């Protein structure tokens, strides 16, 4: 059962009814049962992993709180992190390590058949593992007391709107809310529904329709010329934004209807004027997690090296981000490029600020447009590695873009492309308006007729042009 499945459209309204007739002090229990029911419906055995992570995290965080010896606290923290990372490493990296060992043995003429396991990747494991690690570190740093109620902790780690693809939330935000699941008003439910509706638009109308074209091209790199590959490479970041951004909005809207506020995960990323700003607008929950638990401790430890300590910390953080997505060389290349872009920006920050101040470029529309365009190009260029099946394909795309550009664009089905581009236009227009004209609203207009007809139009557009059979969200595979 996923957000775009018919089962979810039956499950969620039923849950809302049961939730609101449950006495307030037992609502957390309703959510816990619903969350495990939701996850068991994906694949029953997956629930064992989130249960294991929950039990381990509960035991070790309680031990951290109950000891006064600093070295013991640290040991409990590190032991829990090690234990809960084990399944993630196993499922994500075992087959790569296995293949690597096998190649190495073969290269020295040793044929030793290693067990090759056909593993089904537990969806969401990357996300709830990070949530659990963040919680463990927060308890160790005394930012939060360990949760005494294992049921509430279990709910935090398995909360169904977030478990499959985030946002990666923090205990400080979520745990207090589970203790105060009060009656909420109609306007908050409507706000939640609006978020869900826009999320469905992003996913079904934009991401999945763009994906029909982009997948045709980028799954067959050798068959297409530079122009087509360039065009598909420009569309792919928008597909990812619409897919994960759409999922996030559905998750946030679902939680809101249940009275729970979840952090924003995207903030109009394609209007960023630098890569540094981009990473404050794209997959915000992951990047803020990496900033708090990887970059800050690293850069703090390396601070005596000044700007070069920062550069080192950036490179390591984004290499970890790349590896979080997957163990393939393409993800490592992707992470390396992000670190490189941000490092160059950090090293040239003062010079750029002086240049902009000297020429009064801060509010120059053309300069801002060039910055936005250049930032998009950089991200799209790095996403070639993020999308490609292997390094050879990624390098082939680059080669063809630079050697066979100007050749004829492959269109395939005109209808798919036209409606994909129309969807993108609506999405980016909405983002543009929110960025520069936030007072102009349609879905949240003061006039109830404008609100009603905007909602109706949006719903009809989703039903008419949504792709309802394209399958999973992109980030399920991470």
């Amino acid at each position, binding site marked *: 059962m996923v957000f775009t499945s018919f089962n979810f459209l039956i499950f969620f309204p039923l849950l809302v009814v049961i939730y609101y007739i449950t006495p307030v002090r037992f609502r957390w229990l309703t959510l816990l049962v619903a969350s495990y029911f939701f996850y068991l419906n994906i694949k029953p055995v997956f629930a064992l992993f989130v249960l294991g992570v929950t039990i381990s995290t509960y035991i070790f965080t309680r031990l951290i709180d109950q000891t006064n010896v600093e070295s013991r606290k640290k040991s409990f923290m590190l032991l829990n992190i090690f234990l809960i990372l084990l399944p993630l490493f196993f499922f994500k990296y075992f087959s790569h390590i296995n293949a690597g060992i096998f190649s190495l043995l073969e290269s020295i003429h040793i044929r030793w058949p290693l067990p090759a396991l056909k593993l089904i990747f537990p969806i969401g494991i990357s996300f709830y593992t990070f949530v659990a690690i963040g919680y463990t570190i927060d308890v160790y740093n*005394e930012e939060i007391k360990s949760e005494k109620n294992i049921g509430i902790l279990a709910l935090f780690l398995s909360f169904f709107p977030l478990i499959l693809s985030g946002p990666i939330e923090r205990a400080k935000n979520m745990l207090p809310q589970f203790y105060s699941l009060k009656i909420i008003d109609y306007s908050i439910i409507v706000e939640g529904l609006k978020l869900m509706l826009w999320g469905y638009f992003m996913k079904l109308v934009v991401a999945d329709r763009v994906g029909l074209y982009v997948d045709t091209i980028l799954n067959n790199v050798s068959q297409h010329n530079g122009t087509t590959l360039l065009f598909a490479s420009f569309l792919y970041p928008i597909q990812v934004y619409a897919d994960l951004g759409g999922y996030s909005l559905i998750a946030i809207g679902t939680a809101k209807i249940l009275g729970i506020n979840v952090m924003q995960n995207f903030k109009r990323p394609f209007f960023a004027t630098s890569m540094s700003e981009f990473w404050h607008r794209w997959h915000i929950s992951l990047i803020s997690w990496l*900033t708090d638990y990887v*970059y*800050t401790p690293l850069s*703090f430890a390396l601070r005596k090296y000044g700007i070069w*300590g920062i550069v080192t910390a950036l490179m390591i953080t984004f290499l970890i981000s790349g590896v979080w997505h997957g163990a393939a060389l393409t993800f490592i290349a992707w992470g390396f490029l992000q670190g490189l872009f941000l490092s160059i920006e*950090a090293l040239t*920050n003062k010079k750029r600020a*002086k240049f902009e101040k000297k020429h009064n470029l801060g509010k120059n529309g053309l300069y801002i447009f060039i910055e936005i365009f250049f930032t998009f190009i950089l991200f799209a260029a790095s996403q070639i590695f993020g999308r490609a099946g292997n390094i050879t394909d990624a390098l082939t795309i680059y080669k063809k873009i630079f050697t066979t550009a100007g050749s004829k664009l492959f269109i395939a089905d005109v209808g798919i492309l036209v409606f994909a581009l129309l969807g993108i236009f609506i999405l980016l227009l909405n983002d543009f308006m929110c960025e520069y004209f936030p007072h102009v609203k349609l879905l949240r207009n003061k006039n109830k007729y404008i609100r009603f007809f905007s909602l109706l139009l949006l719903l009809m557009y989703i039903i008419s042009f949504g792709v309802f059979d394209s399958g999973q969200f992109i980030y399920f595979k991470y």
Partner: protein
Amino acid sequence: MERPEITNKLTAIFRKVFCNDSLVLSNDLSAHDVEQWDSLSHMLLITEIENEFVIKFKLKDLNKMRNVGDMIDIISLKTDC
């Protein structure tokens, strides 16, 4: 060390790190209020503060710094030790 003295020294450091001679500190000033104050420049700020006040922060101190007021409190504690 007294708060006014800490504030004066801190002001000089902020103006140097953010290249802004008109920057004025207040207790509730935070990263949201200062352009270019992000996780990258924050560490440069921390190093300058440690050098100026001859103190050493712990990682837990950083987590407690939500604004300039918190920063001054922590510096005051460390310089009085």
